[in-house]
Structure formats: C-alpha cells, structure tokens
C-alpha cells in the first residue's frame, strides 16, 4: 500500500486493494452513505471489482444497501456483530493511521515519535471530530501542515497537528505540563515510533 515501506503492513497482509479501500471508506466514516460512482471515485478502484465486493459485503451483513429515488446507497451496518471490531481494525490499519503515516513518510527520518491522540485514538469520535496528531521531531509546523494537508479530504476530517521539538517536549514533560502528561498516558495510535521512543523523550 505504501510506496515508502515495500514490506507488508497488517492491512496489506490481510486484505486486497479493493477490500482495503472499501474498509477505509465505510468504516472510517460509518455514519456516511455512498453511491456506487462515489465509491469507485473516492476509493480509486475499478467499477466491476467494487460491485462484486459490495454485493458480498451486503450479503454478509457488513453493509446496508438502500434505494433512494433512482440511486442505490451503501453504508456500514452498525448492527453487524463485527462492526466495532472492523471499525477498530480499519482505524488502526487501512484507515486513518495508514493515511497519515504515508503522508508523513517524507519527513519520517526527522521525526522521533508521532501519534494520533484524542477521540480518534480512543474510539469515541463523532462524525465531525478532528484528528489530533502530536509530532515530536526536528520539523516545522509549516512542513507538517503541508504534508498533512491532502489527508483531510481523504479522511473527510480536519487534521490538527501539534509539533514539538524534542528538547521542548522533554522540558515540558519534566515540568509536569498538563496536556503532554495526559497525552503520554492516554490511548494513542502510533504513526512513527512507539512507547519506547516516547519513554526516551521523557514520558
């Protein structure tokens, strides 16, 4: 999926291209419904492949198919027994995290740690929730804003980055800075680095 990491991600190991695209579309924004042409365009997949896959997913109860006027709409079935699991899996793999990780790939060697925090990481997000991203590294806010700009349309959500240089992050954590101390222990989706890197920065 990523051009920067040719190795498999969880998403590419488990799912094919069409399935990943449909997961990202339906399970990142489960409150939204889409019609076929939208699905094909947004997910950048072939119409035939999309139709076959959609029919299977509807039959399995993963999606709901409704007709309004002469248009057929598809939407995630929140009543499916595996809805919560698929949503969680998507957000951690084919969804938000992957999209953001790829967008940051060009700056990755200058970033110590980057993670999603807030409602998106806790799984308590609403339809209009932003995606909050904390980045610690030798990068500027301008570079990060430029790198993440295009992801907002893809995710259908605002992406709000906060950028710290390692020295300031360390200093503020040591001083018991409320927001950073809370973010350090709250649920997160790591994009670059992990708990170990965060510990090294003083968390």
């Amino acid at each position, binding site marked *: 999926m990523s051009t920067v990491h040719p190795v498999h991600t969880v998403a590419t190991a488990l799912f094919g291209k069409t399935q990943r695209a449909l997961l990202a579309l339906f399970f990142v924004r489960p409150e939204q419904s889409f019609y076929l042409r939208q699905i094909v365009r947004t997910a950048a997949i072939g119409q035939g492949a999309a139709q076959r896959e959609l029919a299977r997913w509807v039959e399995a109860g993963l999606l709901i198919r409704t007709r309004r006027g002469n248009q057929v709409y598809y939407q995630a079935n929140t009543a499916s027994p595996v809805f919560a699991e698929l949503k969680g899996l998507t957000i951690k793999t084919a969804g938000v995290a992957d999209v953001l990780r790829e967008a940051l790939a060009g700056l990755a060697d200058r970033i110590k740690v980057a993670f999603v925090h807030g409602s998106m990481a806790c799984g308590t997000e609403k339809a209009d929730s932003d995606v909050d991203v904390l980045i610690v590294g030798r990068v*500027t806010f301008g570079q990060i804003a*430029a790198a993440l700009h295009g992801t907002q349309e893809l995710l259908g959500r605002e992406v709000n980055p906060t950028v710290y*240089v390692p020295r300031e992050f360390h200093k503020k954590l040591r001083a018991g800075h409320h927001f950073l101390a809370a973010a350090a222990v709250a649920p997160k989706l790591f994009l670059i680095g992990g708990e170990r890197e965060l510990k090294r920065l003083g968390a």
Partner: protein
Amino acid sequence: MSLSDWARSGWLVEHRTSPQEIADLLGVADRDLRDCARPGLSEDWQLAIAYNAALQCAAAALAVSGYRASRDAHHYRVIQSLVHTIGMEPHLVRQLDAFRKKRNVGDYERAGLISETEAREMLALAQTLRKRVEDWLRQNHTHLAPRRPMPT
C-alpha cells in the same frame, strides 16, 4: 477564481479604502508584532497575537484591492485572498490557514496544544507577511504605502 468571482458569490463586499485605514491596519499589526515579543507570554497567547498581526496585514491588502470579507468564514476568506492580492505562495497561505485552525482549537479546548516552536513560527510568518504587504504597497500602490518603513 478571482476576487470579483468571490464578491459575486457573496464572500467579499466591495470596499473603498483610504491611506488612513491602511495605516491603521498596519499599525495594529506592528503593535501586535511588538507585543508578541514580550517575555513571559504563554505560547497560546503569542500565537494568537502573531496570528492577529498576520490577519490585519491580509485585510489591508484586501482593502487596497477594493474588498473586505463578508461575515461568514471571515478569517478564512481574508487568508485565502492573499493568493490574489499580494500573490502569496500557496504553501504559505496553507500554513497560515493551518495556524488559523490551530488558534481556534487553542482558544476553546485544551491549553498546551501549542508549542514554543509553533508560536515562534507563527511570529516569523506574520513578520514575513507584514514585510511582503509593505513591499507590495510600495511597488503597486505607492500612495497607500506607509510613509515610514516597517519598524524592526
């Protein structure tokens, strides 16, 4: 889309400016740029002040071009208009707009979502914009340019 298209969409309102108005707007920007450098300010506040300076500069350039932003999405339009007024590069406009959103979040939600690095970067961007607007005025609208150059 040009500024006149924006006006037709109701995003901008035609406006006749004066040397006094431009001097006032740039005066507010200069005051903010000075205040922003005061020691002891929180990052949230520094960013908000520097952002305000940048917004005044953008509003001055828009006024010189014959418009002001109508009420809806006022800040957003003023920022986006920089592409059409002083020909600001899209990546700088995007950066300023990202700071606008950051400031909204900072204002109403969690304190500490703004770092020292970001506050400094916003200040540098506001200073750049202040200088760019003045240079543009000197080259294109001499009669509206400040009599004395920007304080340093």
